[in-house]
């Protein structure tokens, strides 16, 4: 009896089996979201207990009318764009290099991938204290021996410095995706192009780059998700400063939540961050979608 029911509507059957995990995932997402929404509508500061009252749009109003939010949003988008550009360009070039046949290729590939496996806080510390430190950093030593003097990276160009650190961490990720994609390129196609007289540049422009567009879109997609919530590197290197120069949305929320202990405002910031992430996500999806159409 039950067997015939199952054959009659297998879809219903599989759904009921999937239901528990879907439900769990749904809760996993919806409970924190609902709590964030709830808190964002309350005047709730941990340091002023007994005063958690309904605040309406107050938290949003206080954020949206404040310079810090807009600066942070700009910084967030700028950082995403800049690091995406760095990792995609460097990643593509490195992949093409590593795709060549040369002695020690395996070791070289391993070394290129390695930075990705260093923890973000650790790599940020290495860059801050050993490389970019203006007194005893390696870069300062180089520039000083060249007679240019030391550059105060994190105070003079905080966003670029963070982008460099991020680029170092995430270029390996791009290589990790792009190199196998390049290796899957049909060698006969390359051979044919060569016979038609294509030089390395033309080969790159007309064969390799179009072939890489799809994996590049994947890289951009995944990296954007991570870069939007970038935090550790900023926390370790610049504390969001000087001023607000390197404060992104994640850091602004941290500041409200853990330095001001303003749960309400931090939650409102979280909601705004969700909205921003969705807008960026939507754009990216369309971009990726269009790319895939073109390729087809």
């Amino acid at each position, binding site marked *: 009896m039950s067997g015939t029911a199952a054959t009659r509507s297998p879809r219903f059957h599989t759904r009921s089996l999937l239901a528990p995990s879907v439900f769990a995932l749904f809760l996993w997402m919806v409970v924190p979201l609902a709590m964030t929404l709830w808190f964002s509508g309350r005047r709730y500061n941990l340091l002023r207990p007994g005063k958690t009252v309904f605040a309406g749009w107050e938290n949003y109003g206080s954020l949206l009318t404040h310079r810090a939010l807009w600066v942070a949003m700009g910084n967030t988008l700028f950082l995403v764009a800049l690091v995406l550009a760095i990792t995609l360009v460097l990643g593509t070039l490195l992949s093409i290099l590593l795709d060549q046949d040369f002695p020690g290729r395996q070791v070289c590939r391993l070394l290129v991938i390695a930075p990705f496996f260093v923890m973000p806080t650790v790599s940020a510390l290495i860059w801050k204290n050993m490389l970019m430190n203006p007194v005893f950093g390696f870069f300062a030593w180089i520039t000083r021996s060249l007679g240019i003097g030391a550059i105060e990276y994190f105070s003079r160009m905080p966003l670029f410095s963070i982008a460099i650190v991020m680029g170092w961490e995430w270029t390996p990720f791009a290589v990790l995706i792009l190199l196998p994609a390049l290796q899957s390129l049909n060698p006969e196609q390359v051979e044919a192009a060569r016979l038609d007289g294509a030089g390395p540049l033309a080969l790159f422009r007309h064969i390799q780059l179009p072939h890489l567009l799809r994996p590049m879109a994947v890289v951009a997609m995944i990296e954007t998700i991570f870069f939007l919530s970038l935090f550790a590197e900023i926390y370790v290197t610049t504390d969001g400063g000087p001023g607000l120069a390197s404060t992104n949305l994640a850091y602004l929320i941290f500041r409200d939540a853990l330095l*001001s202990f303003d749960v309400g405002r931090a939650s409102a910031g979280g909601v705004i961050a969700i909205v921003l992430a969705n807008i960026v996500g939507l754009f990216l999806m369309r971009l990726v979608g269009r790319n895939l159409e073109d390729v087809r």
Partner: protein
Amino acid sequence: MSAALLAWLVFPTRRRPELTVSTVNNSDMILMQQLSSDFEKESGVKLNWVVLGENILRQRLTIDISTGSNTFDVITIGSYEAPLWGERGWLVPLDGLGADYDYDDIFDVIREGLSYQGRMYAAPFYGESSFTYYRKDLFLNAGLEMPLQPSYDQIRQFAQKLHDPQHGVYGLCLRGEPGWGQNMAYLSTLVNTFGGRWLDLGWKPQLTTAPWVDAISFYVDVLNHYGPPGVITDGANENRALFANGNCAQWVDATSAASYFLDPSQSRVASSTGFAKAPIARVPNGAAWVWSWGLAIPATSKRAALAKQFIKWATSRRYVTTVGERFGWLRVPPGSRKSTYEIAAYLKAAPFAPLVREAILNADYRQPSAQPVPYVGIQYVGIPEFQAIGTEVGQEISAALAGRATVQEALALAQAETERDLEGRSK
């Protein structure tokens, strides 16, 4: 047999009582952790330690205590938190530690700083003020003499003469890292001595007034000319490392770093470090801060009695002498007890001790400014909002220090931020 097993399952054997202690990773506290096996032996209590950096500890404790979770039995807090949290009823009062605890031996200003309405909410582990460190050898070579009470004009002239970046010596080191406990702690004293104040009696922020502009202009100017590169990321610890490494000719900061510099195993300037009072610009009021780290018990702790025992042990006179005898007198926690400054061995090992004692005794956290103020605190403002205010203002000033904004612009923004944070304060 099975009954015994059942009993064992239902009533587990009485374990040793445990206390969870959270503290800052300062060297004095690490030493307390090392010595605490003594206490464990004496009392039969097992201690679990959570040792964190200052900022993380503050975040962790504030969230813990304000949400009423009972993770810790003993916490380490400063004179900013103790009265505020005591007022909220978040802490167990510590006025019943017994006659042998000798409350009168604690410096009054330190004890009162950790009290709310006359009840002590944290027992001082060590106390500090701020003063000037300088390099005697560099001063001697340049034919300069540091007066006992320097003025900021003199500090500036010395910095100019001694600044020698080619040889890695910078004229003046100061805190640049933004944060209410970092650059703003120092800058509050600077503003005080320029005659300024954070708030007027109507709780209106005063950040665009002349003393602020003058003080911050001085700070930005002197650091950009004679400060170390990258000063913007230098907090207290970075500066201490710079001075200990011989990179600073002068440094104005916490007195608690003094013993570190005199220890040849950690410092290259052990024989050449000199001490003077905190510099004065226009008025002496609030030119040097007073601060103490104390041990407190959250009201949620279920083992308050045991926790009191531990606190009594760690902040007692006997603890001070134990440290001195076993680890050397330089490592004694300073600034909390008067009797420490009567120990001949300590005074001999720590030539800076009388200066520290005097600085602590002279620091009046109730009258931090030459002008009247509605708050207490020299290097902070004793209101809950100050953590947010100090952090934001600190950021704006660091932008001015980095040359991304003028002092006036930065202070105008800081003023707006402060007004926003104080909105809804009905006083």
